[in-house]
């Protein structure tokens, strides 16, 4: 064998190394598939369970596919399931979440972009301290701000309202959004700002005409991040809402916890999937921009 490969010369050696490469590749993909399956398992169980009837759940196997596919559980979760005394499903709460998340995401992204632009390109006195404090804001645990925030919302007269929740999420997200935009904008050469100043553009004009059009990748990152944070939030939602303004996460909790008698696993699962759908959707649609945006560096002039 040894003398064959040595007499075979370089082409033989190349084909051998190609074989090992292929083998490694197969092993790699195998491993990745196993991991993917492992992570997809809960989703699989959730989906199949949500499509089964209660009888089938009781008698059947957790992992098996549904015998008769039924969407009753989904209908019930969407518009009939009881969240405490009220039995309207997650639908009203879903809309609450939408009403909280969309303005919350837009406002915090826009303010973060402005903050990042100022900190990165208009280096005023104390810009570094300002930025450090902003960063510090990212790491304050939620629990710490609950009481002061409740008081604050009370003083502002927006306690328990949807604008109140938007306000909380904007404040809490600002640290992160500023960080994202600032790190993106520091890689933009300051001669660009100077050129625009000589061209006669002012603060907002430069931001609007030059920086925002450059920002698509980081806007996608920020929007995904903020949307996920706000949509999935439970603590603020449960603390600062009242009947009628609760977000879908709180409703989900109530559905799961408030059923009396038989536990309707299929409804619980369907409700959970409904609650998770928007974030899933955002990832699927914009996920590749997310990765691209995170790694996007300086701007080629």
């Amino acid at each position, binding site marked *: 064998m040894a003398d064959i490969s040595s007499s075979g010369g370089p082409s033989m050696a190349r084909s051998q190394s190609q074989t090992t490469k292929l083998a490694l590749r197969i092993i790699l993909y195998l491993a990745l598939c196993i991991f993917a399956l492992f992570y997809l398992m809960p989703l699989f169980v959730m989906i199949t369970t949500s499509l089964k009837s209660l009888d089938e759940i009781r008698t059947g196997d957790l992992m098996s596919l549904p015998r008769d596919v039924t969407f009753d559980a989904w209908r019930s979760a969407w518009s009939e399931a009881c969240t405490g005394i009220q039995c309207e499903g997650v639908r009203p709460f879903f809309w609450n979440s939408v009403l909280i998340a969309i303005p919350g995401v837009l406002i915090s992204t826009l303010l973060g972009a402005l903050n990042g632009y100022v900190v990165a390109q208009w280096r005023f006195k104390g810009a570094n301290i300002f930025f450090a404090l902003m960063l510090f804001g990212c790491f304050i645990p939620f629990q710490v701000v609950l009481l002061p925030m409740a008081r604050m919302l009370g003083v502002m007269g927006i306690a328990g309202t949807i604008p109140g929740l938007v306000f909380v999420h904007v404040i809490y997200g600002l640290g992160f959004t500023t960080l994202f935009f600032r790190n993106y904008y520091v890689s933009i050469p300051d*001669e660009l700002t*100077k050129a625009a*100043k*000589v*061209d*006669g553009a002012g603060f907002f004009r430069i931001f609007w005409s030059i920086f925002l059009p450059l920002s698509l990748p980081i806007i996608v990152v920020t929007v995904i991040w903020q949307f996920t944070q706000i949509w999935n939030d439970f603590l603020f939602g449960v603390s600062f809402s009242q009947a009628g303004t609760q977000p879908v996460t709180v409703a989900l909790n109530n559905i799961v916890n408030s059923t009396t008698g038989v536990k309707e696993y299929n409804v619980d699962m369907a409700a959970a999937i409904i609650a998770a759908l928007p974030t899933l959707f955002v990832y699927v649609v914009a996920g590749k921009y997310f990765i691209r945006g995170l790694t996007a560096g300086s701007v080629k*002039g």
Partner: protein
Amino acid sequence: MSPILDVKNLYKNYGATAVLHDINVSIEEGDFLVLVGPSGCGKSTLLNCIAGLEPISGGDLFIGGQNMTNVSPKDRDIAMVFQSYALYPTMTVAKNITFGMKVRGVDPATQEAKLKHVAAQLQIEQLLHRKPGQLSGGQRQRVAMGRALVRDPKLFLFDEPLSNLDAKLRVEMRTEIKALHQKLGASMVYVTHDQIEAMTLATKIVVMKGGVIQQIGSPAEIYNRPANLFVADFMGSPAMNLIPAKARRNGNGTKIEIARKDGEPIVLTDTRNTDLPEDVIMGVRPEDIADPARLTSEHAQIAECLIEIVEPAGADTYAVMQLGGKHVTARLHAETSAKAGAQQSLAFDLGKVSYFEPETGQRLN
């Protein structure tokens, strides 16, 4: 008429570090002023101060006779070309060029006309719909020029606009900029650290070092009569020979003695400079040491020198010898008989030498 640009006693500090020290410069309409100096001497900072992009720490600044010290960049009636070109990456070439006019609310028809004119002038018509990322370095440079030209300002500011180009393109663009200047008759301030660029473009040169102006003058003045050792050494390629020598009064002239490695010193007689101190540094351009047959100045004096190295460079041949403990370069013609290791008689043009005080470096004659 008042000068187009007048900088008076300008100071600039970054915190405690002084970057520009007592700068006084003025240029007339149509002047091409070149700021030249080694890296970090404050050229860009001065340009940014003139543009109003950096606040100044002291002094006054007039553009077109108006005090602009506290006026914002957009109201100074200037246009600037940056070292990195700073083209707006998301805009097409056409939008890049018209952005300034759009911001200022110029009507679209005028914008279009000016864009056409400038694009034709710079031969970038076929690039107008591209983004900066799709241009070569030279094309980007042209677009950056176009953005400045379209404004028709009182004063153009250029910060090393050619430093990112390769050598050949740089020479081409240099000629183009010069032609443009002659055609427009515009007033320009141009930063470079390339002394050849400075010599070829300028009508007036400012040589800077460490934030202090060393000399202001026409290219010929700077070249022939450098104000101090720094300028003498910085301007010209190959650099001026700076040879330590002894000066002795002798009748109606001065005997200049230059030590040699072995043997007697060379003695030259300067009949024009009679009140030199004993220790001087003699500055001689390489072309002022030449073959006796080719140097026909009335102040030429001939001396025998031992040639150490001969470097043919095409049109000329450089001969290197050791005088006064320094390597001295002579610029000989291409068919010279000079050989390494052999004696050669060379003519020194004493009509063109500069003398410097060794301690202070200041010019003496």
